[in-house]
């Protein structure tokens, strides 16, 4: 036994170790079940199919775009929620986090009512620009952003509330303007949390299904992301579904382990 695992055994009380082990098994079991059924010999052909590659490409683009938009919009929003006291802050905070608990299908439906061609915002948007979001690739990005952004806001807001605002005061007293303070002091100090939030956001967007299928539909090559492809394949081609599932797991797990483990440090 290595020193590290010996220490783990020595330091973990039984009343914590047993439930923790149950937790690990609970999470790992479906993964193992999946691995047991994967048609390993056909895996290359199944994953190399146009449908699979197209879905992977779309998923990667959509989740990266969603993570990018979440940073651009979510970081300022998190800053305001953490630093500015205003009437209705609790309401805004609740609304912003709503997609975390809302069934994604409901989220997708509300997006459709708001941004659809005859929707509240969708109609003027269409008349002004001819842009139609539902059932289009940009629609996939919108759905993924809607569902995933709360992860970024939650993480960054928490980091901003924990960080010591006196450093920003020092920076101002040294002649730094608001933008310089934000860029050179605030942002670097919350950096680990920002990266952690970004990774979670990306991973959530990568796995997004309900809002996407409701708002953007299921058009291969255009709106059919990996999760949607898995769903379709479950009906038609079990082996393909298994192959796509294993692909999703590998990608997501890699991202979570590699990036989140490296950046996320409890403070």
């Amino acid at each position, binding site marked *: 036994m290595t020193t590290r695992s010996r220490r783990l055994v020595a330091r973990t009380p039984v009343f914590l170790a047993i439930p923790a082990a149950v937790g690990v098994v609970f999470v790992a079991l479906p993964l193992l079940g999946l691995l047991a059924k994967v048609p390993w010999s056909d895996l290359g052909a199944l994953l190399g199919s146009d449908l699979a590659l197209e879905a992977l490409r779309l998923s990667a683009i959509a989740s990266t775009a969603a993570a990018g938009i979440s940073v651009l919009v979510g970081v300022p929003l998190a800053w305001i929620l953490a630093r500015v006291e205003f009437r209705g802050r609790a309401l805004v905070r609740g609304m912003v986090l709503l997609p975390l608990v809302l069934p994604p299908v409901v989220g997708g439906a509300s997006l459709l009512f708001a941004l659809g061609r005859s929707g509240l915002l969708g109609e003027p948007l269409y008349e002004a620009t001819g842009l139609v979001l539902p059932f289009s690739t940009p629609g996939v990005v919108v759905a993924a952003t809607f569902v995933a952004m709360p992860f970024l806001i939650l993480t960054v807001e928490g980091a901003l509330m924990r960080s*010591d605002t006196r*450093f920003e005061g020092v920076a*101002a*007293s*040294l*002649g730094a303007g608001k933008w*310089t*303070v934000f860029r050179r*002091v605030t942002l670097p*100090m919350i950096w680990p949390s920002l990266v952690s939030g970004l990774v979670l956001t990306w991973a959530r967007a990568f796995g997004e299904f309900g809002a996407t299928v409701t708002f953007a539909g299921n058009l291969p090559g255009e709106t059919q992301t990996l999760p949607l492809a898995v769903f379709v394949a479950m009906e038609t081609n079990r082996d393909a579904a298994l192959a796509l599932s294993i692909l999703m797991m590998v990608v997501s797990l890699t991202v979570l382990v590699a990036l989140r483990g490296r950046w996320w440090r409890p403070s």
Partner: protein
Amino acid sequence: MTDSVVLADFAVARDDFVVEVALDLPAGQTTAILGPNGAGKSTVVAALSGLIPIDRGRISISGNIVDDPAHGRFVPAEARKVGVVFQDGLLFPHMSVEKNIAFGPASKGDPDDSEVSRWIDLLGLTAVAHRRPGEISGGEAQRVALARALINEPDLLLLDEPLSALDVTAKVETRRLLRRHLDAFRGPRVLITHDPQEAFLLADRIHVLEAGRITQSGTAGEIQMRPRTSYAADLAGINLLAGTAAGGRASINEVALRIADSEVEGEVLMTVRPQAIALHLDRPGGSPRNVWETTIVELEESGERFRVGLGKPLPLTAEVTSQARRNLGLAVGDHVWVSIKATEISVEPR
């Protein structure tokens, strides 16, 4: 730099009380704002530096009005040229010492490397220039904070409890260094502190701040002579002595005291806390101490403790507990032996 003078007369409401002060800070002088914790000292720092707006009154720095709510004027911190050194340094943890010092000039788009190295050199930080704040000592951190503030050539320098977070050795060393740089800085200096020894040794003029109000202003000597509040009276108990130092000894009139600092030379100011003066009925022995015999000239009860006024050859005030006083049977006119450890005497060149 011109002889900048700060005039401030303002009120800021806090949760529990209103901080209301009038300050006239002449160039080239160190003004101490001395008060207990929670007296509103940090509010004064925040108002002067522009981190919070005042509610009433006016602040002007070098002839420019920087805060005047009646006329809707407020110059924010970044446009004020007020340098602040905070208690725990507040160095940016994600930047090296060098980057911390260069922060001000870089923020203004004027990163002058030679100026940065000059300050690193001036404060003896060459060895740690590339380290992060987490990897340097408390004394070094305060030196970095000082360099970071001074490199900006501020019109006003605020030192908010600059020594409080340091241990005894670092405190003495940093105080000495602070003294030197305060003297070299030509604008007004404000020292915020709860430590009367710091104020007595570093400041030209002292304002005593209690519950948001200045209760007394004057030189250390004036406050000692005529304390106006019980807090000031407590401060007044601190013994302040003027003398000449050389080779680890300080002479005051004909008395020579052993001091811990063997390097300081020339005219010095010294402080000794009354609790640090031990009284004995017989001559004490042991470790290197200053020991002499004297008479009790005054005895004054204050709470659970007694102030003991000591006569020739060196008039000092000691403080003992009521129990110690009973055990020793102290009374006015008694002969007692005084002992003071060399390390209990704080020394600062004048």
